[in-house]
């Protein structure tokens, strides 16, 4: 009897055991290790690293570059998430109108997603070259040639918040096609009968979207925000390939890398890593809770 029961669960368990073990070590084990270093005073490679409690978590805010990199990261997140959502939604809205050649449009909009952030960064670095006037190239040249010279700007070399907004542009370009695909699936998931019923009741096209389609897109919206949000908070490669280690555009992940590898301060680097993880968790945990709940309902 017992033997028979083991036969039910044992093969399954054995099958997933390797991945459970690997995830336990390489994800949760290393997260634990990261926190251990963050709670130590291992500020040089040659330090042993004694436990010092949470002092790094408060001391890190005394480092000016950390606070400015957090601010940069937030501006980037706002522009990137907002921009990709709006553009993605707009594209999906157009697609939903059953235009001719929808398939090829969809492919075109989705293509950028296949490119790595590093490649995107290198190309946009040229597009967003900052010189104005005679030496202008890239977008500034385009503006000048179109007689829109006043639109020329310093892009990521600007010393105001627009530097991070410019860095978010390539990310918006890259990810909005994906968001479009998500929204389009959402639109298509709304039964045609519901729309027809609304039209019969006298709703115009705008009202159909506002009161019938949009309320049903909330799960899609949530998924999009989480996907974009966690990419944005961890962003490293795009920023690094466009503007290197410049303080002007430093984001938390670059700060973390510089602390550990350029400076050899593992403790503060791990603290920055812990904060990035916590910030991502703020996005992901509510989603998981919601996901588990809705699974249960089913």
């Amino acid at each position, binding site marked *: 009897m017992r033997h028979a029961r083991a036969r039910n669960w044992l093969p399954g368990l054995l099958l997933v055991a*390797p*991945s459970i073990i690997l995830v336990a070590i390489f994800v949760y084990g290393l997260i634990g290790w990261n926190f251990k270093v963050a709670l130590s005073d291992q500020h040089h490679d*040659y330090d042993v690293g004694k436990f010092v409690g949470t002092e790094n978590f408060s001391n890190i805010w005394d480092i000016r570059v950390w606070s400015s990199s957090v601010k940069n990261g937030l501006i980037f997140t706002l522009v990137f998430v907002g921009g990709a959502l709006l553009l993605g939604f707009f594209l999906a809205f157009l697609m939903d109108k059953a235009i001719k050649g929808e398939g090829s449009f969809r492919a075109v909009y989705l293509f950028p997603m296949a490119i790595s952030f590093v490649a995107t960064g290198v190309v946009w670095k040229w597009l967003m070259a900052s010189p104005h006037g005679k030496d202008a190239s890239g977008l500034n040249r385009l503006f000048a040639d179109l007689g829109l010279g006043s639109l020329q700007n310093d892009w990521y*070399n600007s*010393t105001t918040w627009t530097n991070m907004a410019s860095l978010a542009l390539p990310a918006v370009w890259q990810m909005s096609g994906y968001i479009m695909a998500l929204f389009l699936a959402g639109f298509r998931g709304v039964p045609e009968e519901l729309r027809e019923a609304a039209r019969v009741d006298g709703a115009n096209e705008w009202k159909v979207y506002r009161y019938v389609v949009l309320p049903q897109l909330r799960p899609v919206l949530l998924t999009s925000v989480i996907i974009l949000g966690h990419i944005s908070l961890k962003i490293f490669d795009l920023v690094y390939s466009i503007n290197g*280690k*410049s*303080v002007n555009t430093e984001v938390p992940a670059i700060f973390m890398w510089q602390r550990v*590898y*350029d400076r050899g301060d593992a403790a503060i680097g791990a603290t920055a890593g812990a904060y990035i993880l916590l910030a991502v968790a703020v996005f992901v945990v509510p989603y998981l809770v919601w996901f588990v709940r809705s699974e249960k309902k089913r």
Partner: protein
Amino acid sequence: MRARWTAVVAVAAAGALALSACSSSKSNKPSGTSPGNNTGAVTDSKVEVFSWWTGGGEAAGLQALIADYKKKNPSVDFVNAAVAGGAGTNAKAVLKSRLQANTPPDSFQGHAGAELQDYIKANQVEPLDDFYKQQGLDKAFPQSLIDEISYKGHVYSVPANIHRANVLWFNPQVVQKAGISSPPTSVADFIADLDKVKQTQPDVLPISVGDQWTTEHLWETVMIGDLGADGWNALWKSGANWNDPKVTQAINDFKKIMTYVPSSSYAADWQTASKQVIDGKAAYNVMGDWAAGYFTSSVASGGLAKTAKTDFDWAAAPGTDGIYDWLSDSFTLAKGAPHPSAAKAWLAEIGSKDGQDIFNPIKGSIPARTDEDKSKYPGYLTWALDEWSKDKLVGSFYHGVVANNAWHNDIDNAEGQFLKDWNVSNFQKALVDAAQQDAE
């Protein structure tokens, strides 16, 4: 049923293999020979050398060195573990992981000077005092150089070359048009000359800069120009006075110079900034002498194939005539190196007269030794050699000679902030704080 079980076993076995592969790296310990008292006989069959020389003259120079090494040590299999990335930014991260995992390469590259301190304190490199005596390197290198690269009286690396950081590059035609007959000899003169260029040729940038580190490089030379060799060297001793009004003056001068290049004109990297001088788009550029290599080397090897003195000209950076702001690529002997005798043969190759004369003309730098074959160093290098033999030496900040990694990083950050807010007193305060925290 049986097939399913086999599959389960197979998957479990694969997982176990993956795990054991991850844990086996530590068992690869060195073979027990003590590198400290090795006297030269090469008993190893392999040597692994880690560097960031992957492109242009650097890679070609390294290849030439390797060829010569193989000729002298035919039984040794040379493993060139080079990681791409300017100034070693990526390579250092890779190296750090290897050192932490106790699988060091036999010898690795590092800027000579304080940049090596963390490796020394973490006990990751061997002292080379005996090796220096045995190879006669203690006599071959200038004493002031050996003093600068020693830590607590011991040397830990063999410098392969010397670069000069304080060079002012200029476009002779542009400068002539501006009515400037001779290169500026002080920072104040320089600012006046920048102004002349701006007045006469509004389309030309008086001075070009690239990304953030190139502005730090410029700041370093302005500091040396205003403080002089002794003033600069004193700043890097513990207890130095960064509140000195001369430092304030230098920061103000740097700020003034930077007003001649609007942030929209910052070039993407140092090559682009230096090329602006060649193209006549900028009058001046302050950059290390690797720019000469870039200007003169052939197009095929990534250079611009230009002629010294006609397409571009140079002088000591303003106010630094008679001062050599040097930096050097050097190689270490890693602690626990798996092949110490072959690694020492490599260090001997780098330190030897032959090795330095093979490598440096290709790399575009001068040898750290003083007994070089002068005929091998044409053009700019002739001038550099001459200056090296008579100038006062100061160590470069940006290129790792005078500041340890923490201090360097603090100044990087302070400088980056300054480029945003241009607040002189905040910048100086950050410099004072950095010196207090990090100097040793």
